[in-house]
């Protein structure tokens, strides 16, 4: 049986997403694929404790990378927006590190830096170039009548969403990073 669940995770929520997918598997739903931004397609399965891990490769993964990950016992599930999803039954993980993709803080911090560079900064640029300039144009009376109302509401909503996302993700990524640097 197939079922789609809706759940929204930002680029800074990957650790929560991993836990949620693991929890779903213990409920008897294994991840098949996902459709951005928030649709997770599951297939019913035997409930099992399976560890889910995500790596951000931004479509730069090589066949060598995929081979190495699978050598370490990870099953490749799916790719979405540059994120790769892997899973491994917890019974097969020989140690805590064996249940993780990254075993030292240096590589955990590297992941955060990559996400900030390739996902957070582009978000800020879109915000400044499109949302802010659109909002300012509207406020300066570029449009009139129905269009003025429409664009005010449109850009106003986008403004709120973008400000929230940028502030939320910025703080959360910084938190993850400091968790792994201040040990």
């Amino acid at each position: 049986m197939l079922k789609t669940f809706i759940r929204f995770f930002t680029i800074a929520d990957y650790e929560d997403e991993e836990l949620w997918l693991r929890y779903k598997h213990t409920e008897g739903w294994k991840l098949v694929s996902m459709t951005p931004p928030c649709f997770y397609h599951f297939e019913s399965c035997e409930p099992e404790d399976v560890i889910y891990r995500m790596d951000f490769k931004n479509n730069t993964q090589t066949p060598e990378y995929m081979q190495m990950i699978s050598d370490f016992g990870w099953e490749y599930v799916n790719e979405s927006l540059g994120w790769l999803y892997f899973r491994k039954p917890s019974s097969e993980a020989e140690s805590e590190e064996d249940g993780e993709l990254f075993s030292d803080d240096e590589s955990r911090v590297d992941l955060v830096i990559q996400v900030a560079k390739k996902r957070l900064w582009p978000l800020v640029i879109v915000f400044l170039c499109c949302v802010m300039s659109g909002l300012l144009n509207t406020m300066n009376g570029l449009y009139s009548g129905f269009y003025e109302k429409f664009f005010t509401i449109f850009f106003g909503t986008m403004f709120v969403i973008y400000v929230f996302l940028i502030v939320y993700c910025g703080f959360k990524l910084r938190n993850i990073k400091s968790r792994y640097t201040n040990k």
Partner: protein
Amino acid sequence: MDDKIKRIYVPMTESGFYILFCLQKPQHGYGISQQVKKMTGGQLTISAGTMYGTLSKMEKDGLIAFCYEEDKRKLYQLTDLGREILELEIRRIERLYRNSKGEDCNA
């Protein structure tokens, strides 16, 4: 030797040291992790993502070089620069060890 490379890698992380140490002979990522597990009695595990990231970085910095491919797995080996860095690190650890035992390292 390149001072910048030396600053980055000496001292190095425990994972980094074992990876360089194992690459005195051609080896691929998974092979290294198995060897490290054996050498440390299972005390040190290097995960897949960390292994891949470290190998990529070391290759880019010229410490190791691609040797040959075996079933889609790339095997690497130390370069002369890598050997030099490993030698420096071993000397540093030996000094650390002797001092920790209270021996005079300049004797």
